[in-house]
């Protein structure tokens, strides 16, 4: 029984195709997992279903109704609810108030009767706070009912978001990265909770998450997106062993044999040098959320070091804490023998440590040459564009073009060139290959290698593990906000299992049957068309036996057949 049917959904942002003909089916009572690397189009797909953006082509049918032109609040009425990756609770309201908003937004309520506090409004008020309490009880949130949402830690806020989404009696629950920022234990708890929610509230779910240790055990069926297309679909067990999926997550297997000799020699030579950057016991985070703790790492002169690990593991936060974009909570950062902990970003960049942030941080309306001059000017040095153009000959051709009109790969080159022009001793590059095609990525890694040959140390954070390990001398593997393993790139490459474990999660729960199949007991009898007396009898019986109505109905059907 298909509940939501997507066909050939296409979304374009300017020239970029974010979704390219995606077709997907969600059955009633099913938990559908949606995974894929960064920039694969998961959130775009999500926004299409919840109505935040409108697809350019394709069709979306929910319960026999087209969703293409329905505004978001209309979809909520139809029974689609969602949570948000970047928490969107109403912070100045209590948890209970957060839950009552979707309930009475869906009911017919009148502003003037509310203000006058007429009996009709106060009855609705009682009913919705009753239901809010019930939901909070199931989600084990009773104690927070009267706390302001903004005062809660992020982990609890995620659970409140699920509660709020359930409040509007949805049939389909869209969960956008519910495990982001949770530790291993909390993730496990969330997985159990999602099953409870499905059983108690009779909802189907579409679950998007990077954390495979959540998605694979929880889902009945999994779709994998990559570059806006469905790369694979199947039961969780088969997805985990699918070579295509592993390649998409870890980057393509390096086809050519890396220059082992040179790298190894270089590594041994560099091992003697004193560390250029040394990070000790670093902890940092945002607001209530501590993202990294106990992170210690070192980068030596003229060395390429990679930070790898699943999304949300704390790689980007580490870079931000080092470069002064956020203030470290504890720990120590030394650069070039000097303590730079908690110094301003400007100060640190003058010391010779340059950060190329995720998303590149370029000025779209400046031309390439102006962008590059800006660096030299702000450092008070004569512009040395020759070096930049030697490393990036392509930029010379495009020097008068506005940066915003360049392709993603070229923009990344501008960002790298700008970093090189600051004459750094260490460049930190965050998610350099994000959203770029493999050939472009290969070229960029070539440039990283050239930068090392110029004597610049490089610290990279990378999704494409294979390519990163090809170019890096050493690597740190991040897991849940701290460093899980570290070692030379050659060692880590040899031990693929180690890395794939940190990305793809541990053992998968034994899948029941063929996966793409929902438990009939969870079928919503309420929404099935049948005589009211029959329905009531079924419901009464189910209530007496304490079982889902669907299960009772299936049992009776079985008896009839027999």
């Amino acid at each position, binding site marked *: 029984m298909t509940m939501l049917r997507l066909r050939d959904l296409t979304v374009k942002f300017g020239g970029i195709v974010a979704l390219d003909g995606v077709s997907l089916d969600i059955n009633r009572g099913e938990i559908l997992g949606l995974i894929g690397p960064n920039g694969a189009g998961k959130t775009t797909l999500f926004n299409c279903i919840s109505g935040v953006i409108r697809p350019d082509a394709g069709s979306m049918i929910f319960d026999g109704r087209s969703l293409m032109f329905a505004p978001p609040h209309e979809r909520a009425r139809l029974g689609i609810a969602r949570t948000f990756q970047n928490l969107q609770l*109403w912070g100045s309201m209590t948890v209970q108030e957060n839950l009552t*908003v*979707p309930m009475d937004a869906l009911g017919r309520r009148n502003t003037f009767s*509310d203000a006058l506090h007429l009996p009709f409004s106060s009855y609705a008020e009682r009913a919705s706070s009753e239901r809010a309490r019930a939901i909070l009880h199931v989600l084990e949130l009773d104690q927070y009912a009267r706390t302001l949402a903004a*005062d809660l830690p992020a982990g609890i806020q995620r659970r409140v978001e699920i509660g709020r*989404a359930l409040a509007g009696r949805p049939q389909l629950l869209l969960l956008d990265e519910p495990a982001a920022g949770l530790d291993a234990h909390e993730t496990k708890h969330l997985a159990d909770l999602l099953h409870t929610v499905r059983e108690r509230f009779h909802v189907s779910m579409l679950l998007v998450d990077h954390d495979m240790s959540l998605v694979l055990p929880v889902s009945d069926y999994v779709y994998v997106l990559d570059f806006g297309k469905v790369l694979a679909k199947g039961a969780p067990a088969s997805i985990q062993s699918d070579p295509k999926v592993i390649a998409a997550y870890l980057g393509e297997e390096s086809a050519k044999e890396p220059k082992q000799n040179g790298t190894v020699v270089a590594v041994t030579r560099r091992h003697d040098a004193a560390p250029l950057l040394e990070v000790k016991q670093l902890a940092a985070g945002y607001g209530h959320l501590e993202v990294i703790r106990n992170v210690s790492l070192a980068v030596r002169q003229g060395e390429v070091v990679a930070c790898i690990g699943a999304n949300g593991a704390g790689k980007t936060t580490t870079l931000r804490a080092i470069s002064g974009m956020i203030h470290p909570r504890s720990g120590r950062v030394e650069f070039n023998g000097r303590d730079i902990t908690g110094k301003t970003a400007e100060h640190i960049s003058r010391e010779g440590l340059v950060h190329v942030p995720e998303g590149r941080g370029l000025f779209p309306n400046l031309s390439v040459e102006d962008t590059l001059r800006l660096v030299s000017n702000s450092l008070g040095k004569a512009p040395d564009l020759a070096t930049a153009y030697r490393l990036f000959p392509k930029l010379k051709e495009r020097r008068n073009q506005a940066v915003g009109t360049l392709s993603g790969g070229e923009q990344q080159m501008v960002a790298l060139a700008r970093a090189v022009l600051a004459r750094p001793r260490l460049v930190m590059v965050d998610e350099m290959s994000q959203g770029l095609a493999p050939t472009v990525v290969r070229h960029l890694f070539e440039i990283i290698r050239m930068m090392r040959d110029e004597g610049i140390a490089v610290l990279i954070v990378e999704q494409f593990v294979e390519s990163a390990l090809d170019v890096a001398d050493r690597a740190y593997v991040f897991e849940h906000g701290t460093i899980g393993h570290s070692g030379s790139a050659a060692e880590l490459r040899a031990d693929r299992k180690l890395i794939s474990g940190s990305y793809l999660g541990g053992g998968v729960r034994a899948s029941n049957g063929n996966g793409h199949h929902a438990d009939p007991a969870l079928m919503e009898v309420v929404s099935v068309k049948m005589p009211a007396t029959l329905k009531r009898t079924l419901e009464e019986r189910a209530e007496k036996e304490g079982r889902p109505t669907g299960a009772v109905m299936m049992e009776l059907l079985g008896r009839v057949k027999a």
Partner: protein
Amino acid sequence: MTWSSRLTVRVLLALLAFAVLARLPAGLDIGFQFDAALAVVWGFGILSLVLLTGYVGQVSLCQATFAGVGAYAAGMMVSTYHVSYLIAIAVAVLAAFLLGVVVGLPALRLSGITLAIVTLGIALVFDRYVFQDAAFAWFTGGSAGWRVDGARMFGQQMDSSRHLMAAYTVLVALFCGVALLMVNLHESGAGRRFRAIRDSELAASTMGVNLTRYKLLAFGMSAAIAGLGGSFYPLVAGSVSPQPFWLFTSLQLAAIAVLMGVRYVPAAALGGVFMAFVPDVLTRFGHGTFRGQTYDISFDWFQIAVGVLLVVQLILLPDGVWGDLRHRVLRAAKHARLGSRAGTQAKGQETRQEEVRLA
């Protein structure tokens, strides 16, 4: 406290406020009585911002325009069509409501600074053209403005300064009533939907809140509240002129609303009093000699004072004068309670939740 008992307390508070406020200016001279009536008119203006900015999070720099439309509409109804003043008020509120809905249309797409500039533009257009242009003389009464001689309400003469206290009493009664409704609204389903829009529009729309409807409603209701206050202006001042409703008044309303605490209904009363009395006190008593030095703190100083106070408030009292005062009193009350019941568990959450409830 249950809903109904809290409602009873509120109704009693509103009645008490009316009883006190209605008597308060009785012993003052006519100048201060005029200020008191004006304070309620501007109190409505700030109340309209409490709804729009405090509850729904929308910016508007044209609230005085709404008040002006209310004033002119009431003046026109009485002078041209000779209707009862109550009907004039109803028409004025309706006119302001409709204009508010129209001004709300850009807010469906805009927010923050862009919305502020659009509303500023609307204020400028009305200030410079509609209120002062001969083409709109049917609405504004030309350069002489409307006079509302012989206006009656509830069978009582209310037009001239001799009957000022009668108009003032009606104004205060209305203000207390609207303030009560506003506090009720904050706690109700519609109020939560408004606050949901303020905290996160994205979440509100995907949780079933119709943004179009509620934003337009908020602008309309806000304008209606400002217009209701404005519709009494002809009674209070005896005539209508463009000057009180010019652009600068709108800016002043916004500044004083923030200064007093834009999320709190009682701040509107404080703000109205501040806006009406302080300039008058300055002009009356702000000059003389002090230790041989003559000084003259005229009305101009009021503008500077508002600016300086706003800066000080944003640093020291980020939730506004009333808001921070409340937090402090509630915190002190909590400490007193905890002290008297030593050994019991901390009731931090309860107090925090109480703080959410409006005064």
